[in-house]
């Protein structure tokens, strides 16, 4: 079952701490887009505070919408907008309510249909987005790896768009493992990018530390808790604490704050951690590609910015003689254009209906990848 998707889709994203609005043509061409990050707002509190995030979305989304509509006007396509897509999950429920409320109201006012869209589907559909000749390359069938601070998932998408979850993390997300190991080494949370920068400073040729890659029962599942714990042990050893001594764990963070890990050891531990995480991701992607002949590799999520990961995945794809698509970084992190792309594909491939905005849509904090919209 497939449907005719609206040509010009206005898309709204507000699942976490980025407010975003975009206008996307045919699920591919980005006409206009705006993203407002709440990072500065949350930095003082050390994280995304759901209540504050929802309020910030409420303040920012109308301005972003106005700017995107202005740009659409200049491009001469404002009156051509024929559908509204909005992230309906997964995410923080308060944030989702603000986004779906705004999208529903605007669609109702214009008499346009509404498309409830999965944030996770958005991340892999970002590989279809293009603007001024940049981006694109996504095609089906595909194996998709989505890696971010909050998500780690490996999925297959058939030629007809059928999605199947192949593996996910049983404990920490890949980005979270980066962030937590960074904190052990004295970098502020979230410090995944800083950890990677530290790791890049490892001197070539020297003895390298190795961290274990956790085995999981489901061969395509991930576990990053063990890498984190092993990094903690190395950090304790580096400051002269016996990690196996009773009670060592009781004061792990305090001990590392009082006695920071020496610079050279920090670099070696960071490099070992990055190698282990990248190797674990690459190994499962390799297995997934072998099980899906003819599938290309699509990578999404904020951790796709990591240089060694991009290199390792490119190597895996090349060895398997597959194409690889990694969107530009602003489409790897949370954005609304990817929601426009996902909504178009979901309608086209028969997984989503055009909804009546007067009936509203119910956002869902949890939305299992590959399932149809929660009711």
């Amino acid at each position, binding site marked *: 079952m497939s449907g005719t998707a609206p040509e010009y889709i206005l898309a709204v994203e507000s699942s*976490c701490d980025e407010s975003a609005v975009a206008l996307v043509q045919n699920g591919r061409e980005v006409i206009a887009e705006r993203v407002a990050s709440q990072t500065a707002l949350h930095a003082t*509190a*050390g*994280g*995304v*505070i*759901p*209540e*504050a995030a*929802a309020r910030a979305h409420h303040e920012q989304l109308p301005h972003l919408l106005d700017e995107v509509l202005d740009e659409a006007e200049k491009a001469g396509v404002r009156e051509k907008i024929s559908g509204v897509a909005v992230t309906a999950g*997964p*995410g*923080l*429920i*308060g944030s989702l309510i603000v986004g779906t409320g705004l999208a529903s109201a605007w669609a109702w006012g214009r008499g346009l249909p509404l498309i409830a869209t999965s944030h996770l589907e958005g991340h892999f559909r970002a590989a279809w987005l293009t603007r001024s000749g940049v981006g694109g390359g996504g095609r089906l069938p595909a194996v998709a790896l989505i890696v*971010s*601070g*909050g998500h780690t998932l490996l999925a297959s998408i058939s030629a007809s768009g059928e999605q199947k979850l192949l593996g*996910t*993390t*049983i*404990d*920490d*997300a890949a*980005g*979270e493992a980066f*962030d*937590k190991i960074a904190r*052990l080494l004295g970098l502020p*949370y*979230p410090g995944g990018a800083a950890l990677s920068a530290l790791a890049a400073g490892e001197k070539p040729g020297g003895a390298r530390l190795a961290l274990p890659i956790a085995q999981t029962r489901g061969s395509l599942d991930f576990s990053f*808790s*063990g890498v*984190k*714990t092993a990094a*903690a042990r190395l950090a304790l050893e580096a400051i002269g604490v016996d990690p*196996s001594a009773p009670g060592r*764990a*009781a*004061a*792990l*963070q305090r001990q590392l704050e009082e006695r920071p890990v020496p610079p050279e050891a920090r670099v070696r531990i960071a490099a070992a951690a990055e190698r282990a995480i990248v190797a674990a991701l690459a190994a499962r992607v390799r297995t997934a590609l072998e099980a899906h002949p003819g599938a290309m590799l699509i990578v999404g999520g904020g951790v796709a910015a990591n240089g060694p990961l991009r290199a390792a995945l490119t190597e895996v794809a090349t060895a398997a003689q597959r194409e690889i698509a990694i969107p530009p970084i602003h489409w790897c992190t949370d954005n609304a254009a990817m929601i426009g792309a996902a909504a178009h594909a979901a309608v086209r491939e028969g997984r989503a209906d055009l909804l009546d905005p007067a009936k509203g849509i119910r956002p869902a*904090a*949890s939305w*299992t990848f590959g399932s149809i919209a929660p009711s």
Partner: protein
Amino acid sequence: MNHYSVTLQGLDKTAALGAVIAEHLRPGDRVLLHGEMGAGKTTLARSIGAALQAAPPLSSPTFILLSEHSGRLPIWHLDAYRLGPGADPNASGLLDERQLLGVTLIEWPEYFGITASGLLGASDLHLTITGSDEGVRSVDLRTGDAERLAAIAAQWQAQHVGATER
């Protein structure tokens, strides 16, 4: 009985403890998971979630702070790690009235000022995990509901004899 200690060897025993605990959970309960980074809080939370038939399965909510799951009871899974000491779970919207309908699992609860000492609530179950990731773990259970703790202890003794100690 105000506390009960269980020694766990391996992931199978962690899953077994999660299953026993889950059987005794009621709407409005909070499960407070204490322990250092790498102690196994998320793994135990995931085991409890699995026994409650959580969909999707629980994983670490550190980055997203709060995840919601359907199951035999609705499940909320919180993590205060990113927020650090002194966070206010009520003002931030992390704890709310909906959670009276289901079970709320909280990692790093001490950052919300919720500790396993002093007067404990009858709907709060504190699980303090110590020990290493690869060897033996010890879990200390505390709650203000002595009857329920005794029931959990009795079931654990009956089903997993030899793996327990007082």
